[in-house]
């Protein structure tokens, strides 16, 4: 198991639903898709959806075929004036156009519907790590990995725990979601490789400083490109702190039946990212074995 049962709030049962697009806006180099989801049960920080590759048409088209995994970026609560009867809740996805499915998603217009299944996976343990409750929580997000951290930052911000969010990107434009984090009131550090905003450089620079200060009492929550997560994990380990990561593997089902999302485990064998993850303790993962 990725994370001990006790430390994770028990997840809501997933539902299959037709979400309604409320907004699909460009923010920097990314996009934010706002959905109204009938009977949405809510999600735990770090959980995700399997969402259709683009809006539904009356015609079922099988190319592209598979749904796409996307983190639940923000929970916005009940939708006012929702269609009579059903209780709609609104959520946001933060995504970047990288291929066919995300391009089709970017073409989805308000009023169109998209099929989805979720919430899926095991979220972040809000009080993880031996001495978690005491030590600082350091959230490190790179690229669209930022999406998996917002609700976690919000939840941790409501505890009396010390929280710092470090967001890194190539350039200011790529820090989609930054303003939402600022609005949270938790401490926010941004890094950009071109120095266009925040510290010039990589997330590992401020992370190193924080880890040294925490003297092994910190918990790092790192989500982003594999090399970034790997670097954060090594840094945390070297400073005796825990590190949790959220893996991105290709997925077909999202709920543990296709076995397509397997990630190699440090002690051998595989874990299913969609079911036992996507959140794992960094040391559980065989980083060399990841694609």
């Amino acid at each position, binding site marked *: 198991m990725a994370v001990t049962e006790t430390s994770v709030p028990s997840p809501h049962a997933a539902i299959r639903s037709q979400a309604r697009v409320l907004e699909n806006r460009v923010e920097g180099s990314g996009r934010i898709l706002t959905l109204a989801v009938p009977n949405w049960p809510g999600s735990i920080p770090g959980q995700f959806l399997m969402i259709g590759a683009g809006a539904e048409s009356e015609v079922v088209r099988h190319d592209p075929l598979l749904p796409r995994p996307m983190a639940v970026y923000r929970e916005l609560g009940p939708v006012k004036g929702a269609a009579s009867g059903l209780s709609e809740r609104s959520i946001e996805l933060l995504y970047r156009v990288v291929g066919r499915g995300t391009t089709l998603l970017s073409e989805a217009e308000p009023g169109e519907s998209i099929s989805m299944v979720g919430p899926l996976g095991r979220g972040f343990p809000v009080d993880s790590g031996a001495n978690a409750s005491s030590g600082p929580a350091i959230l490190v997000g790179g690229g669209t990995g930022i999406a998996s951290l917002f609700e976690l930052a919000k939840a941790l911000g409501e505890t009396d725990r010390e929280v710092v969010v470090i967001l890194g990107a190539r350039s200011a434009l790529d820090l989609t979601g930054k303003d939402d984090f600022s609005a949270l009131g938790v401490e926010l550090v941004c890094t950009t490789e071109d120095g266009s905003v925040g510290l010039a450089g990589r997330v590992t620079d401020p992370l190193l400083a924080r880890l040294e200060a925490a003297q092994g009492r910190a918990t790092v929550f790192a989500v982003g490109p594999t090399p970034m997560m790997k670097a954060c994990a090594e840094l945390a380990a070297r400073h005796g702190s825990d590190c949790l990561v959220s893996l991105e593997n290709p997925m077909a089902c999202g709920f543990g*039946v296709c076995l397509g999302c397997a990630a190699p485990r440090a002690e051998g064998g595989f874990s299913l990212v969609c079911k036992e993850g996507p959140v794992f303790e960094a040391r559980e993962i065989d980083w060399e074995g990841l694609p």
Partner: protein
Amino acid sequence: MSTSVDERVELAGIPLRNAVLTASGTFGYGTEFAPFLDLEKIGGFVAKSLTLEPRFGNPPPRIGETPAGMLNAISIENVGVKVFLEEKLPALPEGVVVIASAFGTEPAVYAELAARVSEHPRISGIEINASCPHVKAGGIEFGQDPALLGELVRTVRAVAKKPLLVKLSPNVTRIADMARVCEAEGADGISLINAVQAMEVDVETRRPVLSNILGGLSGPAIRPIALRMVWQAAQAVKIPVCGVGGIASAEDAVKFLLCGASAIQVGTANYLDPSAAERIARGIAEYAERHGFARVADLTGALETG
């Protein structure tokens, strides 16, 4: 909408609530679908193929996407027959029809698996996954050689105390020959098709998409190939045929029934819509009613070719 149509069918001696089963490897061990459909509203399901011992599959990447299809090379990762019988089966509601799928590198291994699952009261039937490379025979799949397939079916038939289905590989020159061998060696029915051997490449990395290089193509893309093979197999044998391959809608399913299938299996479509199987079962009954068939069973072989 509910209909007055009699949805019950029989497959290889197994009475089914309706003609819709789900395909091995695409429905897990059943319970995973409880949030999305009523397991007692589908005909039943074929569980993930079992090996004697628990088994891990290939390293990632294990899947890829192709036009109207998906590619996979999982390699029969499964909990093993023991955990399946002791933990997975008991977790299922009473009314669910379960067909166990057996996979091995030797006929004797298949036979042992068949014997063990036969004992369990919750198992309604056994499906042999003949797409395993026969180690002794230099890696060619059982399902690709009539002689090997015949030996396999004979060996398993001798010990299987439950209805026996043989799941055929589509990677053959003449599917009818394979169907006849199964019938001759006493199989109660055949399921076809398994995934079609295929390959995909990532032009940016210039590497195969799958760590295994080759994989199995499934989904709507292969449906016309599966339909052709089901038609040819149904023409060749008298034992019941279970149609599998690219079925994503009730209309798709009806095509297989018309071509001679007694029941069908939904595979990849379970990923696209985890409630697909229940929707398809309902749709078949509605189709039958709309077209004046009192029983879904009457759709089997009702294709007009004159």
